[in-house]
């Protein structure tokens, strides 16, 4: 049976060159980077080289990169570290409802710790309105965090504009770029962001390595106290192989980005066109301003998990929304915040493509997916009478545009 991996937003396979670069640091080069003898110095050099390569991917200075264990840690570090560092100036933060749980739950933690949090909604395409951000700022606001690109619907947010508003009001701005870093060009200086989170396994690097960009001169309270690793800002003996892997993956992503983007974009456009050929299937997220390899839909009358399982039985691996929502069998809060009704949000399916997907993979998907939808609708208790309805808009956006139940 053909195997097609269409879940690159969950994780990417490790690039063979990244694996090769990591190997010596699992074997002979196992030294602690703080050790003063040669083995330690080699490990230290490897980390600093990886820091320079990771910084180059987003046009930051090496010293502005703090390695973490994951994107989630980077997000927690940014929110909690800045909120605590700035609490004497004010105790209000702003986040959007498009955020990953590592932002939303960190914000909830801060709420319990005495901060006020504004959760900004998005529009029908999942876009956060910069004017709404501006309107939410008070004299107490110390931090704004808006995701760069949504992993669930692929929408790319107007981060540069929001960063400009934050700067104008002297508020620190963080963006979670876990889904976009290494996949589309990012330049922290040009975007004007103060902090940015990223994760290596989203661009063919290893799991267990992430990074937080912190603009030079910005104070942040550490999340983990201990030794002097990462300039005293993130303690703990470094995961040297993973950090080396992140550096190599960043180097490859930068060099190959244009080619990779063009490739996945072509496949994605074919996929979207083909899947929207099925009745009562709607694209979620922005039709144009979205991640190049990202195609997300809601399929009426059936559940995302059932599609996921039948696709997996045909060797195709996809997601049905965020991993957390999937496991909890809950409608995605991101889709709900975009005005998609809960019943329709349950039928969410997300295809995210990578450099190793081919045109044949898309042919196979377009051949197998429509019969799966048909079969599931035949047995769905929600589908009664669905064929009597007219096919709705192929780009589902708001509840008012949804076919009437």
């Amino acid at each position, binding site marked *: 049976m053909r195997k097609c991996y269409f879940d690159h937003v969950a994780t990417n396979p490790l690039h063979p060159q990244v694996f090769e670069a990591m190997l010596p640091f699992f074997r002979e080069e196992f030294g602690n980077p703080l050790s003063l003898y040669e083995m330690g110095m080699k490990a230290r050099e490897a980390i600093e080289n990886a820091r320079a390569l990771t910084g180059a991917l987003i046009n930051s200075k090496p010293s502005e990169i703090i390695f973490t264990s994951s994107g989630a840690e980077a997000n927690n570090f940014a929110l909690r570290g800045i909120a605590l560092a700035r609490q004497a100036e004010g105790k209000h933060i702003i986040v959007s409802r498009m955020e990953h749980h590592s932002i939303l739950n960190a914000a909830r933690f801060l709420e319990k710790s005495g901060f006020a949090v504004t959760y900004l909604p998005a529009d029908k395409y999942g876009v956060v309105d910069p004017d709404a951000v501006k309107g939410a700022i008070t004299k107490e606001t110390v931090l704004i965090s808006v995701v760069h690109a949504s992993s669930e619907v692929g929408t790319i947010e107007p981060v540069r504009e929001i960063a400009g508003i934050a700067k104008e009001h002297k508020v620190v701005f963080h963006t979670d770029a876990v889904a976009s870093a290494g996949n589309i060009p990012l330049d922290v200086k040009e975007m004007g962001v103060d902090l940015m989170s990223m994760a290596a396994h989203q661009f063919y690097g290893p799991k267990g390595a992430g990074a937080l960009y912190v603009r030079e001169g910005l104070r942040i*309270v550490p999340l983990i106290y201990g030794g*002097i690793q990462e300039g005293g*800002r993130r303690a703990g003996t470094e995961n040297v192989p993973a950090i080396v892997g992140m550096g190599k993956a960043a180097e490859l992503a930068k060099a190959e980005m244009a080619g990779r983007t063009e490739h996945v974009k072509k496949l994605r456009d074919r996929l979207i066109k083909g899947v929207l050929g099925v009745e009562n299937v709607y694209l979620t997220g922005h039709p144009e301003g979205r991640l190049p390899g990202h195609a997300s839909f809601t399929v009426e009358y059936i559940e995302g998990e059932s599609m996921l399982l039948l696709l997996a039985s045909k060797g195709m691996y996809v997601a049905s929304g965020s991993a957390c929502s999937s496991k909890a069998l809950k409608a995605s809060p991101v889709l709900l915040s975009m005005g998609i009704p809960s019943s329709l949000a349950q039928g969410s399916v997300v295809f995210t493509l990578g450099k190793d997907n081919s045109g044949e993979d898309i042919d196979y998907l377009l051949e197998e997916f429509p019969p799966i939808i048909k079969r599931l609708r035949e047995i769905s208790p929600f589908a009664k009478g669905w064929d009597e309805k007219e096919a709705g808009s192929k780009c589902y956006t708001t509840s008012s545009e949804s076919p009437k139940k």
Partner: protein
Amino acid sequence: MTLKFVERIKPDVTTDIVYMMCPMHLLKLEEKMKELEKGQILEILTDYDGALEDVPEWCQKTGNEFLGVEDSDEYYKLYIRKVR
């Protein structure tokens, strides 16, 4: 050791290690002092209380001059003149 309090000292170089804990104050101190010319003044911004003891002691040990400390609301400003 009695601490000397100072005001309005003009530093040549400043290092901001507010929210950083031990031993970052000593590592940054050594790193930055290497960059200074003799006679120049280093300013360390820190909220780590241990620095009030460690930095004057380091100066005594290394033959550099500890000029004193200025207490601002949230952190200390420590001043060191490079002698050797």
